[in-house]
């Protein structure tokens, strides 16, 4: 058969499909299994599938949301390897490029072939499923078309992605590796760089982030696109039967499927442009396009240097406190990692181990210079990341996370937010003291160990997070300690710890007492924890609040031994859609001391013992513990003290 248009050749297409039949044949078999299962189950008399329109809609949406992206992600690379593998051998590329078809025509034909290979199993499995459903009395809802469209869109995007990678490389083994790397590169780099920064910058804390998730399509599609369902109670047969019925299905964030499909078009056009410029002699090269080699090399060097450099740094930094030594160590570790990354990158790109020459030495010197500049840049905080504190006017809300958490509103709590900014600045100004104290004597009786995290939710939608270890010798740094304590025990602030005046509601609470109690106390408790009624919870909460108002409870700052523990669990309705409610949860921990009269009285009431008995027991326990602690101090522990020097 002759092709009438030079943009598509039927013979090449048919040959491509025919050659790889085992691949799509196997997938088609798996795609047929659900239909076969439904048919078999129907014959046995109990069908697993409901043909209710809403249930069908739910099923198709689930398929589009959770199966299509995953299958497309996995099969795209195999299909790409099957149709583009000819680019990786001199012999086959010579054949394909000498046959009478334009490069555009060959590209389109191969692209359509690859996409068809991916879609055949869907077509076979999908057709069988639709027919089965129709036979069982089900319909053909619009969701079927939505599902088909999503399958095509996802397959198109991931195949275009794999095709782009296939044209960037000329090596069949590099193709799947690069496909995986490019799929997860940005989110991995984001977290890796976060981790590096959090290792060296005061106040920066590592936590997994996904700001670049949109550049990791499979992650974005599987995490942000989802199906919302709502069920209502349903008892059609008897009042004793408690069932539920689906009443609504919503497909959320499906616009990402369309966005990625559009990006797929850009990728496909990009791949075609590379293909038209690509030299056949690049077959076998890890990177086929010359101008991309420096970029790929740079990305490789940055990634490997960060990863391997950090590994070396953590291996050798044990016991090094002096900051000057630390920076020397960092330069050595990252320098070694950069050198290895630089040369291994060149070896991979040039397909030879003979990469050591004057020309590459210049590149290495530039790379090492960059490492030194970055290390010093980080040490001296050139970008002022450590000192950055948001402006009061930019803040929407603040979360302060310490032993207990509190939340401030940028508008309503301006005074408290300003206090928070002041204490944050104080911490930064005292970096030298706090870093020194981190390596101080752990057995110091005047020592305060704690931490504080500030989450600033800004009006531009971003969040700035800082975390500090507040390890202080209360005697040596009295003023700083007092300032910090004053902030943390500020009455208005501590009321916020108890979620006073905000939208959090107490959802539950429980408590225990620390000493072994006798028959005067009620038994039958779950591991020493008491279950409380709503009234008891409210009474206990008010009692703790009264202690707080009287100053007998200073969260996290009392030197006295705790005699009981209380946990209040709060919840707050954050968002409510027609189908779903989103809550934020918080827990308040109260370490009850023997001087917290109101709290202990409330506990005595709950347990049905006299106030006097409980107070006596509590005081006795506190005294015993204090004596025991004195006897068991590790006085022989000798911790070397280092002076922090810039």
């Amino acid at each position, binding site marked *: *058969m002759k092709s009438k248009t030079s943009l598509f050749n039927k013979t090449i297409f048919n040959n491509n499909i025919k050659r790889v039949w085992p691949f799509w044949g196997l997938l088609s078999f798996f795609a047929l299994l659900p239909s076969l299962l439904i048919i078999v189950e129907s014959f046995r008399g109990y069908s697993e599938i409901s043909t209710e329109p809403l249930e069908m809609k739910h099923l198709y949406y689930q398929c589009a949301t959770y199966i299509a992206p995953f299958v497309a992600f996995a099969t795209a690379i195999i299909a790409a390897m099957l149709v583009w593998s000819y680019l990786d051998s001199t012999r086959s590329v010579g054949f394909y490029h000498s046959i009478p078809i334009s490069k555009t025509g060959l590209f389109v034909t191969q692209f359509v072939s690859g996409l068809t290979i991916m879609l055949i199993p869907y077509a076979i499995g999908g057709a069988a499923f639709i027919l089965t459903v129709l036979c069982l009395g089900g319909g053909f809802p619009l969701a079927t078309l939505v599902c088909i469209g999503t399958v095509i869109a996802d397959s198109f995007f991931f195949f275009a992605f794999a095709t782009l990678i296939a044209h960037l490389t000329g090596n069949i083994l590099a193709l799947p590796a690069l496909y995986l790397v490019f799929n997860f590169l940005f989110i991995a780099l984001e977290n890796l760089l976060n981790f590096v920064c959090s290792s060296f910058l005061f106040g920066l804390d590592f936590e997994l982030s996904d700001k670049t998730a949109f550049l990791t399509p499979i992650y974005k599609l599987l995490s942000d696109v989802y199906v919302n369902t709502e069920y209502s109670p349903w008892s059609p047969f008897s009042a004793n039967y408690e069932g539920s019925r689906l009443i609504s299905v919503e497909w959320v964030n499906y616009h990402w499927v369309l966005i990625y499909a559009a990006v797929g078009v850009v990728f496909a056009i990009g791949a075609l442009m590379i293909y038209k410029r690509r030299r056949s002699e690049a077959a076998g090269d890890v990177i086929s396009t010359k101008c991309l080699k420096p970029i790929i090399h740079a990305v490789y060097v940055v990634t490997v240097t960060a990863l391997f450099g950090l590994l070396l740094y953590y291996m050798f930094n044990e016991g090094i406190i002096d900051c000057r030594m630390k920076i020397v160590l960092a330069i050595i570790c990252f320098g070694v990692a950069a050198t290895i990354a630089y040369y291994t990158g060149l070896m991979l790109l040039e397909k030879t181990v003979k990469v050591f020459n004057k020309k590459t030495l210049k590149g290495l010197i530039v790379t090492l210079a960059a490492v030194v500049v970055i290390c010093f840049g980080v040490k001296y905080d050139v970008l002022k990341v450590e000192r950055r504190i948001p402006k009061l006017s930019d803040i929407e809300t603040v979360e302060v996370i310490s032993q207990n958490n509190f939340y401030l509103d940028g508008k309503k709590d301006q005074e408290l937010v300003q206090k928070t900014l002041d204490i944050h600045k104080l911490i930064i100004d005292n970096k030298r003291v706090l870093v020194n104290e981190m390596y101080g004597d752990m057995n110091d009786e005047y020592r305060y160990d704690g931490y504080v995290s500030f989450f600033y939710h800004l009006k531009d939608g971003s969040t700035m997070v800082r975390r500090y270890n507040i390890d202080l010798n209360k005697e040596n740094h009295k003023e700083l300690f007092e300032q910090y304590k004053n902030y943390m025990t500020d009455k208005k602030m501590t009321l916020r710890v108890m979620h006073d005046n905000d939208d959090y509601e107490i959802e539950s609470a429980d408590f225990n007492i620390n000493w072994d109690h006798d028959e005067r106390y009620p038994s039958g408790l779950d591991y020493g924890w008491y279950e409380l009624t709503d009234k008891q919870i409210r009474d206990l909460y008010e009692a703790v609040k009264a202690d707080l108002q009287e100053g007998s409870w200073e969260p996290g700052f009392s030197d006295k031994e705790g005699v009981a523990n209380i946990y209040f669990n709060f919840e707050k309705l954050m968002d409510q859609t027609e189908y779903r409610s989103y809550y934020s949860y918080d827990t308040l921990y109260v370490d009850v001391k023997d001087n917290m009269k109101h709290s202990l009285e409330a506990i005595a009431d709950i347990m049905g013992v006299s106030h006097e008995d409980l107070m006596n027991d509590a005081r006795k326990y506190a005294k015993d513990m204090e004596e025991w602690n004195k006897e068991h101090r590790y006085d022989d522990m000798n911790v070397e003290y280092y002076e922090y020097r810039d």
Partner: protein
Amino acid sequence: MIEIKDLVKTFDGFRALDGTNIVVPKGSVYGLVGPNGAGKSTVIRHILGIYKEDSGTVTIDGTPVWDNQSVKERCASIPDDWYYFPNATIKEMMHYYKGIYKNFSVERYEKLKEAFPIDEKKMIRHLSKGMQKQVAFWLALSTMPDCLILDEPVDGLDPVMRRQVWSLMMSDVSERGTTVLVSSHNLRELEDVCDHVGIMDKGKVLIERDLNELQDNMVKLQVVFGTDITEVPKDIPVLHVSKLGRVFTLIMRMNAERAMEVLKPYSPMLVDAIPLTLEEIFIYELGGENYEVKDIVI
């Protein structure tokens, strides 16, 4: 007509073709010869549209070859390492060629079965190297090409099949005016079939001529001078001299008549002109380009 003008191709800084110029007249059989690494295969890959020229032009009948479907439809090739699909039979490969080449003739394919007695249901990869080469010829000739580009075409074929293949090609040239460019190291065979020859070295074509003209332009003389002349006089322009007893063998870049005239002043006792083979021309031409047989004894 295949025409290559000032073709330059560089691979990672190495200039594989350095301003190559080739003209293959329509209906001729052009032999492209040269030492290993001269750039012959690179030239062929340009003519087939596999490589894109860095500079210069490659045209067939005045039309550029690169990414040109209509030109490629008229060309068939047999590369040194012919590609076929790993699980394809001859018949399946025939269907593939049929779908790709507009002029593919099933009738010719059937006729050529007699020349190539191979079971067409056999998988190509199960055939010997020589048989795979026969299949390549079978399919290439069935596309009814106007241009046939061959790289070491008879490598691996037995003597009978070699003769058979050359005969088929020559009949194509005479009956259909097919233009053939063939690269080979088998100069004796080329001498029998080529009417034009180009000698390549270091990415350039050193000589390109009609074979008869080339042979006329170089002569081998056996000369016996008088007893007073023991060495070849310095004013006689020779490419190569050897001496056995009193008989000198001279290679001169001129025709026999002119060589006789040049020798006349020295009154040689005996002069005998012998035509040079292509192999000798190749050796003596490249000798001038510092590519000669070295008298090395190990």
